[in-house]
């Protein structure tokens, strides 16, 4: 079993829900990466999704896109992010998940990326512009390093496709909750419960909900229909404003037992 899946199952075994914050590496400077990751780890998050900035992030909404532009303006690259993570990998006790578009991995070299990412504490990879059909480009290299390749499942996917995606996804299943791009939403469609029931029926791999989740209520509500949540834009905004109280409230909402 992948370390990522194990970490999520450990959380859910206690009755809590997995909470995975997304951060944009290099937003505010790469020197912020270590303190941010270590503080989130201290708050008890299950894993951390580390966003890699890209020039053409077509799956991202304005909040994450702007954070990516700030990171790029700081000279952030995939190589520098991995080097930085490598520098404090011994202090990281929770799995990191890299979210990157495909082209930076291709430019890095797929095998080299898999090896360096593993050494830097990355235990899972999400590639939003690489569908199931193309995953053989990176899957063998990641697999040989024990890095999970996570598939996104969309509301628009057909039942047959949803089954194939959930069965292929490693670590967890990233269930996209809206038709669209990343970013805060006011409301979600009513049929989501059925959708998640279907996802859970195909697999014993944890199913996490992502895209648009921005309030403690969202976190609680999704906790009733799946194994946990990924929160992106709201975390990115809060970090940019150094608003840790908001982040703590979101994390707490994923707990069944009150935090002491």
């Amino acid at each position, binding site marked *: 079993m992948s370390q990522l899946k194990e970490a999520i199952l450990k959380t859910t075994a206690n009755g809590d829900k997995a909470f995975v914050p997304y951060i944009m590496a290099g937003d505010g400077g790469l020197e912020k990466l270590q303190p941010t990751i270590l503080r989130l780890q201290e708050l008890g998050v299950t894993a951390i999704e580390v966003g890699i900035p*890209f*020039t*053409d*992030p*077509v*799956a991202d*909404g304005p909040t994450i*896109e702007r954070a990516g*532009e700030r990171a*790029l303006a700081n000279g952030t*690259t*995939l*190589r520098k992010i991995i080097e930085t993570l490598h520098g404090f990998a011994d202090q990281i006790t929770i799995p990191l998940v890299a979210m990157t*578009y*495909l*082209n*930076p*991995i*291709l*430019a*890095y070299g797929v095998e080299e990326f898999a090896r360096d990412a593993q050494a830097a504490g990355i235990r899972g990879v999400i590639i*939003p*512009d*690489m*569908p199931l*059909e*193309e995953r*053989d*480009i990176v899957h063998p290299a990641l697999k040989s390093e024990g890095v999970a390749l996570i*598939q*996104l*499942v*969309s*509301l*628009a*996917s*057909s039942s047959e*496709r949803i089954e194939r*995606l959930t069965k292929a996804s490693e670590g967890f299943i990233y269930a*996209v909750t809206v*038709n*669209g*791009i990343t970013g805060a939403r006011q409301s979600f469609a009513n049929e989501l419960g059925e959708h998640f029931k279907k996802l859970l029926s195909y697999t014993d791999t944890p199913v996490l909900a992502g895209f648009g989740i921005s309030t403690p209520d969202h976190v609680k509500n999704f906790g009733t229909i799946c194994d946990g949540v990924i929160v992106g834009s709201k975390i990115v905004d809060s970090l940019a404003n150094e608003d840790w109280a908001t982040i703590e409230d979101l994390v707490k909402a994923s707990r069944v037992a009150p935090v002491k």
Partner: protein
Amino acid sequence: MTTTTKGRFGRFGGQFVPETLMTALQELEEAYDKYKDDEAFQSELSYYLKNYVGRETPLYFAERLTAQFGGPKIYLKREDLNHTGAHKINNALGQALLAKRMGKKKIVAETGAGQHGVATATACALLGLECIVYMGAEDVKRQALNVFRMELLGTKVIGVEKGSATLKDAVNEALRHWVTNIEETHYILGSAMGPHPFPTIVRDFQRVIGDETRQQILELENRLPDAIVACIGGGSNSIGMFYPFVEDQDVALYGVEAAGHGVDTGKHAAAIHSGQTGVLHGAYMYLLQDENGFVQEAHSISAGLDYPGVGPEHCHLHDSGRATYVNITDDEALEGVKLLCRTEGILPALESAHAIAYASKLAKTMSPDELLVICLSGRGDKDVHTISSALGGDLA
């Protein structure tokens, strides 16, 4: 890269898109497969191409241009004479008719020079579809006339301020819009690029250029041309022109990329020349990028060629050696504009002027018993402000 999926041209192409779009692409592929051989669909398309677009376009013997070089007989395929002034309408109309059959009521499109935007706005007005066009803010400035035309046609034009604020960024926004409005919207991609099945669909709707040329040259000269020259941004007019000749090994095919200020200046749009490959906008292709895989801004005086990638079928024709890819600078393209204006009384689009400029070089190496065809993809009325300012004028 491993080639695992359909929609590949050699090692290029594929479907590198967010999962939400996969179902839409599959739907599009199924619809296209159903209608491409459907007689009713094809006869509807032919009806509009003939009576609305004004096809077929002439294959015109450019006598004075020919005399200029004393080389091959030069013919111009007059796509500039199409309704809306460029070849873009062939594809926009085809895809709009397809969208209608698919039951999609809304259209989204990107545009660089504005020609594809105008063509799409036109097709949507004709067929009663709602239309939104994303256009880089830089291009909105460079092509104010086309923005106004689109608005007159009832289309909503949205300027994109992000990134380099050009065609690449307009494609990003159009893709985001499509992901968010997937159920009722069809994306009319304007060039032979993007994820499968777009490169094939666009080529098929543009191959009318090459099919007509082939028939016309056989009628006029009783043989095929020795060389064909066409400009390349994403590569739609060129692939439409080349495709029917690909099996004819004796017909040399030349694709002309935009060299901007020069291929060694870092300010150009010559993706094939760069030799780098990568993934952008759904396809694996030759791509202008840095060592980190970040996509670089393209530069060309011509907004329609100002794109950092090139369609996957061209990438494959380059790898296989079947077509030759060359490049022409901004300055050379401007000379091409002047040349065609003064020898033939035709104002070419800045895009097409790249083909004229390269053909001028090529003609000097060919003999009078040879035939050279240039794809004149569009007319230059939209470019008069850019041309004037590049030549030191102050038309504003």
